């Protein structure tokens, strides 16, 4: 605490230096926080409640899948899914925003067939399967979009919180405490100076008196 430092000139200089450093750090952290928040809002605009939409889609997807499973058996579904295999390639690049690692995802989905129509046989399948396939295709697309924005948002928000805490700690704890310390040391030094000044005067007066007496 501020009370247990030595009131010396050296200590005063050190404290002043620390204040300058703390203020510099505070300014930088504040800039970092602002930049992170800016980035966060950029991503937030892209995200647009994807989670909620996804949950809704998932409910529908599961339901259609359930129907498909009850109409056909698992073997049939597995067989159909083999026909549907796609070359899905995701390209993930890790971007660095103020020390936060954020994935940048681009996807390329290529169907090995050049038709955009269903690639499984009409015989032995029904509209239930078509439904499930359609739903899950949409879900997959959303998941890929979500993958980028959600992880980025999570990482950013954690970092924003940390930075914010640091900024506040500097602003409301460390800098006021150092200021207090500086003030105290300066006060004590002034006090000591006045003290010695007065005693010097007193000594001088005594010496003068002695001289006159002689």
């Amino acid at each position, binding site marked *: 605490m501020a009370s247990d430092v030595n009131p010396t000139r050296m200590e005063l200089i050190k404290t002043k230096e620390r204040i300058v450093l703390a203020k510099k750090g505070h300014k930088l952290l504040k800039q970092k926080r602002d930049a992170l928040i800016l980035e966060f809002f950029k991503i937030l605009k892209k995200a647009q409640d994807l989670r909620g939409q996804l949950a809704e889609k*998932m409910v529908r997807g599961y339901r259609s899948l359930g129907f498909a*499973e009850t109409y056909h058996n698992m073997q049939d579904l597995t067989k159909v899914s083999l026909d549907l*295999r796609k070359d*899905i390639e*995701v390209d993930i690049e890790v971007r660095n925003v103020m020390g936060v690692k954020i994935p940048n995802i681009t996807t390329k989905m290529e169907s090995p067939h050049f038709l955009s129509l269903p690639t499984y046989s009409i015989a032995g399948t029904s509209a239930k399967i078509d439904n499930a396939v359609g739903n899950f295709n949409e879900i997959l697309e959303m998941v890929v979009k979500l993958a980028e924005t959600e992880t980025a948002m999570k990482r950013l928000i954690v970092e*924003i919180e940390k930075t914010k805490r640091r900024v506040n700690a500097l602003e409301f704890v460390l800098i006021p405490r150092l200021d207090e310390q500086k003030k105290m040391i300066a006060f004590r030094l002034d006090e000591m100076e006045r003290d010695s000044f007065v005693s010097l005067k007193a000594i001088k007066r005594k010496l003068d008196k002695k001289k006159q007496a002689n």
Partner: protein
Amino acid sequence: MKAKIFVIGDGPLVMGFKLAGVDNTMQVNEKDFQSELEKSLSNNDYGIIITNERMLSGVDWRLKKKLDSIAYPVVIPMPDQSGKSVEGDQIRDLIKRALGFDLGAKK
């Protein structure tokens, strides 16, 4: 970096994504989930790992912490049949705590 999508989870999830054309899938039960997930995390071929939210909530905290800090691969938990998403609520809570206002209230 070129990578693939991997689905690990319960029957319906895996089946669903199979129908969407995902090739790399693995159906696991709760018991093997953690070890299999760890295995898939260390596999560099997988860029996005899609999994069950319910199963993911069962893994121990060390793995969870790891999932929260890595940028590659990206792990996406999916809501289950009930359509309730804990993940979304969690993120909203985080935002509320960090920025001081509720984004969900806006819509």
